């Protein structure tokens, strides 16, 4: 047997010998266990209330990232100021996944009610991503509490009144009833043209 043959055989033997003692390595596409997911879901720690979000937007909190998970058409009609649109059917595009994979921002997702944002949250939590939250009640709750806050009853305590005052000022900040409904809110409203009245000469009187 030639020397090269012996050399190759020796190399293969050494390689296989080392390999024999190595454990099986499988790359699991990271998913948390279903028990952990159930626990996390039931804790209900994923909710941000509409008041929290209003405070975050007004104070320009840099750690919150708002994501609208509805379709692009609904996003164009009406959305929260500063929200990004990631439609629920393109969550797993690699471009969009980077929003959810990071641990710098707290991502708060919202939709019309709670259910769509909750579904997206469930999917992302299953993939093991932290830092994702849901705005409780979605845009419906937003309109009911922030834009058109209900007036507290006689029996309400001071905290409720303070909340109501905050909500009223937030409502004014966000443009009052309806929020950002029109596409360019800065369009000047047409002012009625004032036609100067022609002063007619006095009729009668002294001549």
């Amino acid at each position, binding site marked *: 047997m030639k020397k090269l*043959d012996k050399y*190759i055989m020796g190399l293969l*033997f050494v390689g*296989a010998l080392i390999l*024999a003692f*190595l454990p099986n*390595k499988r*790359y699991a596409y990271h998913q948390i266990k279903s028990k952990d997911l159930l626990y996390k879901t039931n804790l209900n720690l994923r909710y941000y209330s509409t008041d929290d979000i209003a405070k975050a937007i007004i104070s320009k909190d840099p750690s919150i990232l708002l994501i609208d998970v509805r379709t692009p058409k609904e996003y164009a009609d009406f959305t929260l100021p500063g929200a990004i649109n990631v439609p629920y059917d393109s969550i797993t595009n690699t471009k969009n996944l980077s929003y959810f994979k990071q641990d710098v921002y707290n991502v708060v997702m919202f939709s019309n009610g709670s259910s769509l944002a909750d579904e997206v949250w469930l999917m992302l939590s299953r993939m093991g991503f932290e830092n994702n939250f849901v705005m409780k009640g979605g845009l419906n709750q937003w309109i009911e509490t922030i834009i058109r806050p209900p007036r507290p009853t006689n029996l309400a305590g001071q905290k409720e009144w303070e909340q109501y005052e905050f909500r009223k000022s937030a409502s004014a900040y966000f443009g009052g009833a309806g929020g950002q409904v029109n596409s360019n809110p800065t369009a000047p409203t047409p002012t009625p043209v004032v036609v100067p009245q022609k002063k007619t000469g006095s009729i009668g009187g002294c001549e």
Partner: protein
Amino acid sequence: MGPLFPQNIITEPVNLLIAVLIGTGFGFALEAAGFTNTRKLAGVFYGYDFVVLKVFFTAAMTAAIGLFFMNYFGLIDLQLIYYPSTYWLPTIVGGLIMALGFIVGGFCPGTSFCAASTGKIDAITFVGGVFIGIIGYGLVYTPVFSKLRASGKMGRVNIAEWLGISDGLFIFIVTIIALVAFVVVTKLQAKWNAKRSDEFLDDLGLDD
């Protein structure tokens, strides 16, 4: 982290270009090992030249050991690499048919294309035979072969998993078998060649 194409790291045209380059290297290696010579190829079955066995085992074990090391160090994800499902019955039948063709014709399908590209007439005829066989199989598939083709399905079998041992241990066992086979066939080849006269060996057109 590989593999490149299943994870869309490279596009399909680039994938095909890499395939062309790998194929070029493969053809070069086959020709350099002498696999375009029918006498060397069929020598395994007659016992005077075991180069096919040596090259095959060396290639397979190098690839296996290299791949599993790469998997361990995170350079490639073995779970994404495709391998087809196992149908044991049609595989055995097909293997027997191919072995018959190999001994009679002196080529296996891959080496026949290599030899045909070097200009050997018998290789070109062999390639013609391959085409006729494939077309004939396709024409009579539904009535004759479809049941055989679908029988013996075992799904995607990983032998190490099937036996219940770790991958590395299985590769080690196969490497030991390969090394023992190398030593045995070298002795066999030397013994066989010593029995024959020099003229006979020259007539065969072999070296070593």
